[in-house]
């Protein structure tokens, strides 16, 4: 069981060399996206995507330095994707429960639905793939809980997690190709960034045992 304030990724710290490499990767990625976004004409569909990827990579880079990774994920979701209800769920092979951390904006019914279904949310659709709701015709279990997307990440070989995106803001009709690029970025970097958070900042983030 994971108690409150204990890190879900406690089985392994990431080496300092990896930490420096992660920060360097995120910085280089951020600069590459920035260059791409200014090279593409403003009215080209890729410009907005590149600009958002730049802002997201930059936010993760700063978050690793400052120990605010989960907050950065909530910020990216709210301001770049248009989803204000985001949950981070983490479980491990040696553990019975699931650790949860969430953005503001969940109502009690939604929190109860997450608590009751946390394990299944992690394991559905299949577990190692990005799930994105296809539309009103999507009758999957995840869709029935009001989930718009779920992306997996790994803190280490034994500890996996997911970012779960619930209802989108009213102006968003669904997730588009640009959002998929952002989700892929989060899928690749959330695990390493959360692990770095623990190594560098002794994991100050708020995890609650479900």
């Amino acid at each position, binding site marked *: 069981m994971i108690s409150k304030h204990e890190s879900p990724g406690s089985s392994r710290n990431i080496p300092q060399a990896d930490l420096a490499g992660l920060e360097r990767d995120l910085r280089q990625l951020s600069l590459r996206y*920035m260059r791409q*976004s*200014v090279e593409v004409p*403003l*009215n080209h569909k890729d*410009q*907005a995507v590149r*600009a*958002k990827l*730049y*802002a*997201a990579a*930059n*936010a993760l880079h*700063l978050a690793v330095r400052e120990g605010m990774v989960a907050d950065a994920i909530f*910020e*990216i979701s*709210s*301001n*770049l*994707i*248009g989803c*204000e209800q985001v949950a981070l769920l983490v479980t491990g092979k040696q553990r019975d429960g699931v650790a949860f951390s969430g953005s503001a904006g969940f109502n009690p019914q939604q929190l109860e639905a997450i608590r009751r279904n946390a394990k299944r949310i992690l394991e559905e659709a299949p577990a190692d793939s990005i799930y994105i709701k296809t539309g009103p015709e999507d009758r999957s279990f995840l869709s029935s809980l009001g989930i718009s997307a779920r992306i997996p990440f790994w803190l280490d070989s034994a500890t996996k997690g997911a970012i779960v995106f619930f209802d989108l*803001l*009213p*102006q968003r009709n669904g997730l588009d190709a640009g959002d998929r690029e952002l989700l892929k970025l989060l899928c690749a970097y959330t695990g390493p960034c959360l692990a770095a958070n623990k190594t560098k900042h002794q994991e100050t983030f708020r995890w609650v045992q479900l």
Partner: protein
Amino acid sequence: MSDTQYKSQRKTAQQSGQKILLVDDSSTTLLIEEMTLREHTQYELVLARDGEEAVEKAIAEQPNLILMDVIMPRMNGFDACREMRKHEALRKVPIIMVTSRGESCNVEQGFESGCNDYVTKPINGAELVEIVNGYLLVTQGQSQ
């Protein structure tokens, strides 16, 4: 107005040293707004991170346009907008609210507080430049 005249006016507006105050507590939104306007226009940019700082900077810097988030610490965008409108020099400055939610109640509240227009998050660069250029062309036309 012909297309050539419009393009000429737009260029003039962008090169005339007009100033925009960008206000948002979200570093990602502020980063996108700043990068987009720096790369695709020549306006001078001033940044603020909350409503109180926005009011202070608006009074001190006298921007030609204000682009402001709604939900912010210390003072929200609607209250900041009301404060700004109390100052004679800021009464006619276009204020565009950046809102997470585009529902009618939020939009109405924004207009009641004195804003001129709104855009919804996530920010779209092309839409942002178009609305900013549009308002600055109008204000420049009025001042000539």
